[in-house]
């Protein structure tokens, strides 16, 4: 499928901002199943300094600094991307999950890199509740594919999708106690549970193309950034294959999912983060995302 992506972030301040520095993770990744046909990034005001780079996880980032005094900063990313469904090696999905611990698979050339994603991270800390929650999906010897799908199903079943239940500072404790959250929380919960058993998985930031309800027009800008997870598959041909699962929607990520960036958790790959110098007392943020068939 080919998708036209449109992502606009607008920051508004009640007083002049004299200096604004930021780091963006907005360019979709180039992957075996995803081609970036076109990508354009624009900021208003135009930054005096902007430079692309590739981060530790292979994501494309952009650093910028805007020194034109402004009360509104608009970051706009337009991309055209072609995505295919992913194909995995059935034999790998069938291995017992215990064989997917990278620390114990030094026979595989890419295992050492996956170890970083089997360890706790700032927002996916070691958590006993998440560990025991995930344990129910990890019966001894269970095939890796089956176990990971089961954890995804259970999170979808057991947790309510509720935008009011969560904040930027929501922790695993909050999510487990409330039994509710949003996609970012579900991804973090999956990662905490999975990693607690020595398995590797990463956080994925991207977009999901939504279908409007029957009889309704598509509403431009009503989409949002999305988050899901990828599970490390040991010993796949060529190495480095990951199984993408979306616990929020209880489905594997296929051709409707556009991958932008991946990391240990949300903190590694926020779409926009930055620092401002201002006397402004209040600021507000509006995000508009649209994923349309291109």
């Amino acid at each position, binding site marked *: 499928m080919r998708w036209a992506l449109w992502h606009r972030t607008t920051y508004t301040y009640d007083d002049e901002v004299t200096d604004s520095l930021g780091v963006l993770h907005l360019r979709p990744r180039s992957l075996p199943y995803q081609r970036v046909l076109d990508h354009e990034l624009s900021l208003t005001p135009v930054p005096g300094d902007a430079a692309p780079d590739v981060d530790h996880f292979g994501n494309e980032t952009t650093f910028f600094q805007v020194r034109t005094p402004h009360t509104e900063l608009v970051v706009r990313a337009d991309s055209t991307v072609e995505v295919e469904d992913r194909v995995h090696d059935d034999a790998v999905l069938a291995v017992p999950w215990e064989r997917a611990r990278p620390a114990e698979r030094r026979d595989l050339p890419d295992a050492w890199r996956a170890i970083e994603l089997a360890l706790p991270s700032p927002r996916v800390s070691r958590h006993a509740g998440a560990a025991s929650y995930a344990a129910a999906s990890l019966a001894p010897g269970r095939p890796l594919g089956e176990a990971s799908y089961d954890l995804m199903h259970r999170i979808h079943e057991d947790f309510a999708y509720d935008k009011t239940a969560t904040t930027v500072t929501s922790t695993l404790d909050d999510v487990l106690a409330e039994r509710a959250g949003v996609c970012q929380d579900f991804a973090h919960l999956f990662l905490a549970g999975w990693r607690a058993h020595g398995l590797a998985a990463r956080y994925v930031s991207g977009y999901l193309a939504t279908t409007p309800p029957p009889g309704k027009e598509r509403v431009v800008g009503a989409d*949002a950034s999305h988050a899901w997870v990828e599970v490390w598959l040991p010993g796949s041909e060529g190495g480095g294959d990951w199984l993408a699962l979306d616990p929020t929607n209880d489905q594997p990520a296929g051709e409707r999912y556009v991958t932008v960036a991946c990391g240990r958790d949300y903190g590694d790959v926020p779409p*926009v*983060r930055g620092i401002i110098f201002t006397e402004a007392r209040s600021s507000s943020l509006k995000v508009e995302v649209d994923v349309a068939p291109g």
Partner: protein
Amino acid sequence: MTALRDYADRVNQPELSDPSGSPTRWDEMVGPDGGLRAPWKALASVAVGLTEHDLARVGRDVTRFLADDGVTYVRPHGRGEVPWRLDPVPLVLDAADWASLEVGLAQRAELLDAVLVDLYGEQTLLAEGVVPPEVVHTHPGFVRALARRSYVDPHPLLVTGTDLGRGPDGAWLALGDRTQAPSGIGFAMENRRVVSRVLPELYREARLHRLGPFFSAMRSVLMQSGGGETADARVVVLSTGAGSETAYDQAFVASTLGFPLVEGADLVVRDGYVHLRTAGSLERVDVILRRVDAEWTDPLELRGDSRLGVAGLTEVVRRGRVRVVNGLGSGVLESPALLPYLPAACRHLLDEDLRLASVPTWWGGSEEGRAALLDRSDLVVRTVDDPAPLRLPAEDLRDRVLADPGRYVGQEPADLSWSPQVGPSGAVHSRPVSLRTFALQHGGAYRPMVGGLASVLGDDRSVISSKDVWVLKASPEDPDQGLAEVLPLSTLRAPEVTVPRVLEDMFWLGRYVDRAEAALRLTLAATTLAEEARPATAGDQALAVVRGAVHRLAGPGPGSSPETDLRSVLLDGRRVGTAAHAVAGMREAAQSVRDQLSADVWRAFGVLDRAAELVTDSPYRHQLGEGAGRMLTGVLSVDGVVASMMRDQTWHVIEAGRCLERALQLAHLLRATTCVRRGLDVDRRVLDAVLVATESSVTHRRRFRGHVRPASVVDLLLLDRANPRSLRFALVALADHLSGLAGSTGSTRPERLVADLLTRVEETDTATLVAIGGVDRPHLADLLDEVLAQLSRTADAIAELHFSTGPAPRPFPHLVVAGP
């Protein structure tokens, strides 16, 4: 029997050896045969002559010298500032002992540098299983923002620190490495300075390596590390501020090297470079010697809540446009979990065997490490990111290790060597010592400082004192530090840099100096009255008026007796408006700009401290006046320091602060004392006290000869253009000093405010001011109220124009990724 001979005899008492007869510990001064070790033999003629009495005196000299230099150490976790402690007996090593250690230290620094390059580059150590990836990935010192292909730094380590201990067999063992921002170089230099002064004969005898050339080499290494033209390289020392544990060390290093000491808010990223905000302009920075841990250095990409950093610094570092020393990624090397893997890493990266072994260490993340942590109760356990050992019951420790084994290491308690330590009475004790060493990347290799900083440890292994470290030369012709070619530092002069924060601290230094002086003179006037006053006399009433002037600024004090009140004015640093508070303010301001001031300023604080002790210790009333007098001597000696400063902006801003404060204090004093009539007898005594408090009695006598009258006092203190104690004089001087600041144009707001006030003062006359309305002098009161209000506006305007650095950085608002 002399003190050290006595020590030598005690060291070889049988209880200190185990039954097999082999020594259980190494003594740094005394050999197993009971004789002095080789390096001490060379010093024996002087050293052995020292008696306990001599050593007690030397100990007191050390304390006094350190206080005069203002050397302090701020204890962590807000436990306050304590004097730096130094044991007078140095740790002495001879050339042979040092030579083998030096090779090991140089190799270790080279290895750590190579490990760092590998971890932020190819990561062959991880890919080939030499170092478990968990060790690196779980350590907070591993900075992912630099683990990118775009960041290349072939030698990120310029200065390393390694702590050493010496076992019973005499071999040195590395206890740990300090690689982010090793502290202690400044303390080492200060220790040397003090010991060479208190034990001059011993120092002369010793033929030891002097430290100076190490600093010169460090300076040139830093200037070259920016990669550009060395002569123009701008180097700054990034400090955590005056409240830091090692603030003294930071300021000492900055001023010795001749680089400005700055804080995060003084730096700003523009056009892809780091700049220093100096008064009125921006200046590009090539090299940052940081004393801030990496995670706090950039709120954009590292810790978002940091106020100590520079937003965008990481990006500038990645672009190679500023050199941070040591590299921002170097904290990972401080993980003790790396220690077990260093021998293999050394073979892998340098193709050599590791010469300087580390203290045996087990990391809980490995099978055998976890087993050792759980089975061995003798291990000292700590987390991988905190050097402090965990002191927990065995059960709790076990639970923690089981829950997250990779977070812990266990280390064999290091055998340390012992060394003499002088107690307060001059008696010599035997205590364990550890040694911090430093190595500098110089001319393509690492050169260890020939010397170091030793720590004397107490029974619980906490540091109780430091020691100087003397490394003796093999031959008197050996160049100091083995560095013959380095230029001495004295040929280099630091260019003037004034960041707004420094100007602000200088301004307040000036204000507090004059505030302290005014408060002390007023206290002296009050004590004189208090000594003479009988109840219900004119003298008693005058005392009440003068105390009213004290209370106008300091509020009513504790207790009703004048003595308790005045004692509090001298001693209570927390009571705002007192002399003690002003002295505390002086000290705080001076500490914040320590690198810019002559060390003589700390002598003044030494005098102040001893004067305050006199007041504290003595119950006698007459000691109040004596104490206040000595404190005044201390404050006045700061005048001398200021008088010999360069006539640059820094000096102008101190003087501006002093003039403004002098005018303010005078207005407050006169407002409290001369605006109401209280009868001739009382008024005369009050006016006399006012003249004493404004140091104008003599001038008044010379100018007016006759009696003290309100008109003569008002004329002399407000309107006289020649009296340096007058309001008019202070305002003229203030205008003059303001015009010396960058950013002044002659018509800036502070300059206009002062000019207006001066006109107002010049347009009035004595007769109008002393004119009476009822019991009051309404015109005088009005003028003084106007003066106070206008001066307060002026102070605000000065701050806004000259000291403001703009708003603090803060993060963008956040959004939850809620997803469809």
